[in-house]
């Protein structure tokens, strides 16, 4: 049982008890009050010894008792209704409290999402110039590695042949292999593409045709006539391409 419900019940029962006491005092005042209300009357003739007349006079008649009982019942009924109303109020307060708690939790959740998004919003995307500069750094690093790395004869030859074989199969229409060279941990591949469609087809299918599990990087140079040259760097399986600052 909730605290609010217990409080409601307590309040209602206290009101009921208070109301009953008030009613009892109203409809049946204490004998002492009756006695103090007037002078001591003389004992009535025929009165039993030890009994005063006012005491006898305070005893109501049957009809009067019934009236008072009816009033008491009506009062009890009213108090019962008030108690029900208070219970309903307490229940509504409880629901309202639960609703507020839920709203607070949702607000807190939304606040954390906003905070997370804000953190991202503070990040500015790099400018095209910055992107270009980063790409040039990356390509220079990869080209340096491709030039300076020694050749692993166990892998270099077969890997280069595999790349050449993909083009020899003829499935990459519009793409022509210009050069392929593999060293110990990476290959550098230059491919000319007739147009953007051929380049897109190459990007979609070359990996599947080659079948290597590889780390790769590529840079595309688009020419004025719509053709493009792609320089593709592929790592040997189990290796990763070098990164600037790594």
């Amino acid at each position, binding site marked *: 049982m909730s605290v609010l419900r217990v409080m409601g019940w307590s309040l209602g029962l206290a009101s009921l008890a208070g109301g009953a006491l008030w009613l009892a005092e109203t409809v049946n005042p204490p004998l002492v009050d009756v006695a103090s209300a007037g002078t001591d009357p003389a004992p009535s003739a025929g009165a039993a010894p030890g009994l005063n007349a006012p005491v006898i006079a305070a005893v109501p008649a049957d009809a009067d008792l019934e009236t008072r009982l009816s009033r008491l019942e009506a009062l009890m009924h009213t108090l019962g209704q008030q108690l029900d109303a208070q219970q309903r109020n307490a229940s509504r307060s409880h629901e309202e409290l639960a609703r507020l708690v839920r709203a607070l*939790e949702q607000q*807190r*959740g939304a*606040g*954390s*999402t906003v*905070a*997370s998004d804000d*953190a*991202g*919003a503070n*990040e*500015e*995307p*790099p400018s*095209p110039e910055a*992107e270009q500069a*980063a*790409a040039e750094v990356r390509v220079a690093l990869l080209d340096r590695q491709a030039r300076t790395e020694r050749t692993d004869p166990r892998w270099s030859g077969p890997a280069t042949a595999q790349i050449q074989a993909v083009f020899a*199969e003829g499935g990459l229409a519009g793409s022509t292999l210009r050069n392929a060279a593999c060293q110990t941990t990476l290959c550098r591949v230059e491919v000319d593409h007739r147009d953007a469609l051929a380049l*897109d087809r190459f*990007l*979609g*299918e070359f*990996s*599947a045709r080659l*079948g*290597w*599990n*590889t*780390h*790769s*990087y*590529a*840079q595309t140079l688009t020419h004025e006539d719509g053709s493009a040259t792609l320089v593709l760097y592929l790592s040997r399986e189990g290796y990763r*391409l070098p*990164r*600037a*600052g*790594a």
Partner: protein
Amino acid sequence: MNAKQLMIGLGFSMLAVAGAPALAADAKTLPGAACQPNSNNPTAFYIGSNGVLINNSDTALTVICPIVRDVMAANSSNGISNAQIYVVDNNNSTNDPRVSCTLESRTTGAGLVEALTDNSVAGASPNVQVLDNYTNLGSSSEGYYFFRCTIPGNQTVGAQINRSSIVMYRWSETD
């Protein structure tokens, strides 16, 4: 420490937990149905009632599978910490075509940051296999990620047509 102090401490701890943003390392998944054909004239494919994207033609289908990016900041070490793609390679016909998926990181200008490629194993099987050679993919601030997958075409064996598919994919970002 009395009970009141303990309750206050517990209350603050709960507030701190409730107020913390979602962990960036939380993994996310999408069904193969999220993938889109790479071409404006794709070979036939369909989405199964189980959310799997299935190549329904005799030739290879290339699809792009988008990845939701949560962590927008970028530095030399963050990006995708790991990713997996669940595929079915049910074709071992001539040259044994594989399901080949490349996880790409691109800049806001569509420039390639870097890519990682993994392929299904040789042979044909209706069982799901996991391609998972996708760890520590770099990122560019505000850029985007996706998988690009090539799915082999159907292989007819007797009266049966074996189809290959993308079942789902999963990724985790680095904070």
